[in-house]
């Protein structure tokens, strides 16, 4: 149901969810009732580790993945807003924040940061059968299946993710998880306001306007820059994190079928990766202003045929 706000350029979309929605892939019912709110919300945040934007990326020997040696991995910057949003909703209504990451053992470093920031526990999703790890990393659908299974197992009521991971730029995983769960999602959220523990008003920037939506839990939100101001972990938080639980779940723990997540489960496959072509040296013109302008204009006209 989409209503146009009177002349305001705002859209209001009210999303309602039924009590139980069959999960499209497993056929298993997902309990979407609000649950016992007196215990607070069951919150999950999906966190991905990506090469830092400064990392010098080299293509691996297989020609289809990147060589992880000497690459510094960081939490995907958009996920930082997701983590902050998750912590804020917990601070408001109480409950538990679980940070979930999929990938090799190194993702535990990202999870430890989440625990230090204030997440209550962490789940690392790792299994040799999750196909070729490089492929799983690159197939958002296979990845979303694993993440959705984890969310289902946790019984989360609200899930946060970043709007995009800066390594692949697909903007796919978050919304795919919502689809697999049969949940509504709001992507690219820039503002979030809780009406009560079961309803949120969310704003997102669209072409020339801002869209305001109301969403009922369970729901998945993907965070954009500007949603909030992510906190730094405190030193006490880092020390407290050492005592918080971090579980590792494999395919068996998630009751996942090999065909859904193993090698070849992705709907796309990476054929090859190539670094961008090396930049050629620039050209420098010298002389006084008049001479330089004449030379540049001549070059644009004659050599480049641009004017």
């Amino acid at each position, binding site marked *: 149901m989409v209503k146009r706000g009177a002349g305001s350029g705002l859209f209001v979309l009210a999303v309602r969810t039924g009590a139980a929605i069959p999960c499209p892939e497993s056929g298993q019912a997902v309990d979407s009732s609000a649950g016992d709110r007196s215990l607070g919300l069951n919150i999950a945040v999906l966190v991905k580790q990506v090469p830092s934007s*400064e990392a010098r990326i080299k293509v691996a020997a297989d020609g289809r993945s990147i060589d992880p040696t000497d690459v510094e991995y960081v939490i995907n910057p958009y996920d930082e807003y997701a983590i902050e949003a998750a912590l804020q909703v917990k601070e408001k209504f109480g409950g538990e924040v679980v940070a979930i990451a999929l990938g090799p053992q190194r993702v535990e*470093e990202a999870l430890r940061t989440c625990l230090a920031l204030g997440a209550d526990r962490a789940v690392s999703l790792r299994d040799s059968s999750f196909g070729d790890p490089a492929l799983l990393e690159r197939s958002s659908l296979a990845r979303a299946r694993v993440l959705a299974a984890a969310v289902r197992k946790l019984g989360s009521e609200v899930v946060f993710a970043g709007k995009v991971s800066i390594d692949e730029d697909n903007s796919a995983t978050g919304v795919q998880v919502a689809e697999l769960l049969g949940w509504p999602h709001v992507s690219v959220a820039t503002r979030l306001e809780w009406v009560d523990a079961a309803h949120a008003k969310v704003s997102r920037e669209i072409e020339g306007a801002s869209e305001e939506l109301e969403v009922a839990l369970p729901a998945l939100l993907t965070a954009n820059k500007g949603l909030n101001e992510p906190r*730094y972990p*405190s*030193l*006490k938080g880092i020390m407290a994190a050492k005592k918080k639980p971090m579980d590792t779940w494999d395919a068996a723990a998630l009751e996942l079928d090999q065909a859904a997540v193993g090698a070849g489960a992705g709907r796309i496959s990476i054929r090859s990766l190539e670094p961008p072509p090396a930049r050629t040296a620039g050209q420098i013109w010298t002389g006084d202003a008049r001479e330089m302008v004449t030379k540049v204009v001549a070059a644009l006209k004659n050599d480049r045929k641009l004017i």
Partner: protein
Amino acid sequence: MARFQGLDFYSIDQSLSPDERQVRDLVRDWVTNEVLPGIEQHAREGTFPLHLIPKMGEELGLFGSNFNDYGCAGLSAIAYGLIMQELERGDSGLRSFASVQGSLVMYPIREFGSEAQKERWLPLLRRGAAIGCFGLTEPDHGSDPGGMETRAVRTDRGWLLSGTKMWITNGSIADVAVVWARTEDGIRGFLVERGTPGFTTSDVKRKFSLRASVTSELSFQDCEVPADSILSKTTGLKNPLMCLNQARYGIAWGAIGAAQACYDAALRYTLARTQFGKPLAAFQLVQNKLCQMVTEITKAQLLALQLGRLKDQGQAKPALVSLAKRNNVAIALDIARTARDMLGANGITDEYPVGRHMVNLESVSTYEGTHDIHALIVGHAVTGIEAFA
């Protein structure tokens, strides 16, 4: 903003625990994002970045983070040292602030104070809601604090303080001063609150070093403090020296941070700058300088690491701390001077952090026991002969 890549030529990172690395990276990123953008301006204007205090205190919990009570984080000595390293990569003034607050003010209150003094001050100091300073040095007694002239005399209601303390970091911005004074029963510590009648401060102006840090003179003229302001467990000169030993440990790490900042600037600069048709870094003489920097930083890191391990086992004897403070500050100063040279004319502007670190390190070399005083401490430890006087 990308994370600063510290020099780790010997894979020393492997010897750090995950939470030690996490603490280091947290402070490293914080310094990059919140300290570096404004620090040159503060150094230029001779002001301390006061707005960073609540962030270091309330938000991150850096002050007294090696203590495990009164809300402090209970970090290992190495994690604490790494924090000092990262702060000093920003500026020695910032690290000085944290050293004073934690090692020279919170530490003596925690070690020598009454329960009431601890309850009152430690939470405030930890959060940065109160600032502390440490007054030991006097105009006429620096390396020889045992000669101090500041006196405390018992009165009906408490103690009467008279004397002058000089070169006191945070002096005029402090809410509470830990002041060392001679009494009938030897040297003892007192907590003197800002605003106590007879207690005034004035700042040292026109410094060319530690410009982003407040350095003051404290003056006590018939300044009466209540009986409960004495640090009751203090008995003599060894008590302030115990404090200095804590702070010197932090300086041994801090100096590595300043050295890393200078090395990083020199490496980047010489790779980017071309003379005689090739990058400066392609010349043998320049590579020799870089090699020397890498060697000295690596040795300093190994010293600090082992000292940290010993400290956690309660075995960091004062002479060991002296050796590390002396060596690490000296090599940092040397690296800063070499980096200044490698940047050519650019090295004398504040476009680059090198000149600031270089002049800062002159103070660091002098305070908390001068380079030569530490040689005398190590000399005493190895010969058994005191050569101070």
